[in-house]
């Protein structure tokens, strides 16, 4: 056992934290506005393929290079995630389809759409793009990266990881200190009361769902552009669902979500970085690979009864013409 492994594990955990936290924030905006979003995974998938295309197109084809290519990739993934989420908004807010049915369909459609887009984007390759696309220059965190033993955790991070740690400030402020945030939350708690105050519920819920697509999309784009450096089918690995579990564990709170996302991010790192640790070494490889999933199930089962989801989440608001 060495601390070097632990540093490496934490570094990987930061990466997965970024994906899980941003996607979880997406779920948070949607669910606090009253729309359950099982389709986060699908929105991430769209983010991975369009983000990768953005980085490739703007970076290599148009010659915008680093870091503008990757940044454009992230922005494109974000925009396309939101665009794709509009299907969920249309189905759940406007047509009042069951939220879970729509989310499941979103996930199914995303897999096929990603393949189709991939053949259009990447010269007929349907399941991956060319590897080794440019990414932003990685950074070391001053001071922290020289901590003996676990300093490696703070080396070679994508700048976007820092963004994922700082984004909590504007998100918390928007939710808790602005009129819009108050209205968004009230749409998820008590839409009838919201409506009775003359505030329209449907636009708020549309905004919540579009934001969830934007966050999930940029998280997916981060995965393909910054971490893997190309698009591959199935690279989201169910992280959209793990983000949902993290959201539940956080009790729909953006600050606590950071801790939950890091916990599940660390679980992802176990099979990747801690394989040589004493006890883990003696377990067959395939069982170590199960760790992230098992930990998610155990944590979810242990906590789900102790948290309270937004009261009106999952319920269609049938007010006058659904407004």
């Amino acid at each position, binding site marked *: 056992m060495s601390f070097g492994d632990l540093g490496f594990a934490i570094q990987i955990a930061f990466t997965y934290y970024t994906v899980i936290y941003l996607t979880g924030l997406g779920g948070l905006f949607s669910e606090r506005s009253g729309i359950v979003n*099982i389709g986060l995974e699908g929105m991430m998938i769209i983010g991975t393929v369009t983000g990768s295309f953005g980085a490739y197109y703007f970076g290599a084809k148009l010659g915008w290079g680093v870091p503008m290519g990757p940044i454009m990739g992230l922005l494109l993934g974000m925009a396309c995630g939101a665009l794709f989420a509009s*299907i969920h908004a249309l*189905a759940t807010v406007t*047509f*009042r*389809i069951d939220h*879970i*049915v*729509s989310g*499941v*369909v979103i*996930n*199914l*459609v995303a*897999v*096929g*759409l990603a*393949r*189709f887009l*991939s*053949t*259009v984007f990447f010269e*007929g390759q*349907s399941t991956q793009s060319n590897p080794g696309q440019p990414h932003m220059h990685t950074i070391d965190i001053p001071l922290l990266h020289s901590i003996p033993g676990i300093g490696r955790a703070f080396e070679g991070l994508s700048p976007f990881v820092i963004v994922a740690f700082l984004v909590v400030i504007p998100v918390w402020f928007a939710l808790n200190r602005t009129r819009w945030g108050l209205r968004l939350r009230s749409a998820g708690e008590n839409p009838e009361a919201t409506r009775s105050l003359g505030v329209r519920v449907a636009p708020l819920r549309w905004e919540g769902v579009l934001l969830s697509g934007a966050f999930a999309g940029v998280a997916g784009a981060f995965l393909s552009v910054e971490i893997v450096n190309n698009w591959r089918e199935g690279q989201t*690995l*169910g992280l959209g*669902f*793990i983000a*949902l*579990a993290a959201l*539940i564990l956080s009790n729909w709170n953006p600050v606590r979500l950071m801790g939950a996302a890091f916990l599940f991010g660390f679980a992802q790192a176990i099979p990747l970085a801690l394989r040589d640790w004493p006890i883990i070494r003696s377990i*067959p490889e*395939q*069982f170590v*690979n*199960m760790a*992230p*999933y*098992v930990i*998610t*199930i155990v944590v*979810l*089962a*242990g906590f*789900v*009864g102790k948290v309270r989801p937004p009261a009106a989440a999952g319920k269609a608001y049938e007010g006058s013409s659904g407004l």
Partner: protein
Amino acid sequence: MATAPASPPKIALPKSRPEWLENFLGQLGALVLSMLIAIGLGAIIIILYGENPLDVYGAILSFSITANDGPAYVLSIATPLIFSALAISICFKAGLFNIGVEGQFLVGMVTASWAALRLDFLPGPLLMWVVLLFGALGGMAYAAVPAILKVKTGAHEVVTTIMMNGIAISIVAWALNGPLKFTNAPPGQNVDLRTDPFAKNALVPDLGHVFGWGPAPHLSWLLPLALVATAIVWFIVKRMRLGYEARAVGASSGSARAGGISIGAVQIKLFLISGALAGLVGMQQLLGDRGYLPKNYEATLGFTGIAVAFLGQNNPIGIVFAAILWAILARGESGLQIETDMPREFVIILQGILIMSVVITYQLAKRRLARRQVRRAAAEEELVTAAEEAA
């Protein structure tokens, strides 16, 4: 002085048709409309891509229907999808989402393979039935975990079953590396690629030759078995107490509880039946196509089953037709590639559009039907009140 005769009230009743007919016409109308929408949107994509919609749709249909072995391929593709969609639909009756059919069918393939390899002393067709039973039991046991977690802790089955799917992939990998390891690998070949071949009497016999179709599509007796499963699910849902309770729970868990139904027990029973059906999803590739468990097994059948279940509106008979429609499109993929310049992935897009439009159209049709019923009830009430006032 004689009272004036009550003049007949002037209220036009909505056209009155028997309720089952109205239901049926509504569903049929929604299905036809959503298929037209999907074909139309698909045509727009094809035109944007610079191809001719008639050529593209023609290629799909010619390859899957008029080609020689086409129908046999379509039916063999549809076979596992029927099991998978039935598994989804029986849970959905109670508002449960068994997204874990994917993992349950993988585990079912492992337990069935174990039975095929280790119980090969069983005589004749008995071995095949035991292997099928083990497949169903494997899926059932694996479905029990999220079911119990749901009932005991409230952990949402969508998240737990998705995680269980991830675990199942590792279980297959472990089985191919350990307990079911290939023993007779030729030198130089990777040993974790597949299991040993199964005994002949573990396999499901071919059905295609009965209709004069070649052996290549591997149409097997699993198709009739899938139809039997369809009938059983129909019977459970429509004629048994469990089906009634499931629908009550799905409609409103509060009133179901007030009506004395033990919701947890219903949910666990449905999940177990669903898991058993899911355990049979992999049998077509295991016992019909291959005769061994390979590392590169055909995955995602569990997810496709969700789409087929929605397409069939969770109705057992609808599911059979939906599975065939899905298989026609899936088989048509190859036709696209051979006969047109459209990427074969277009079919997946078309399938996605189809599902989305079916779900939305059907929901709108159901709401329209409900509104009509409310209107008619109100009109009838008005009639009665008017008649009472007149009397």
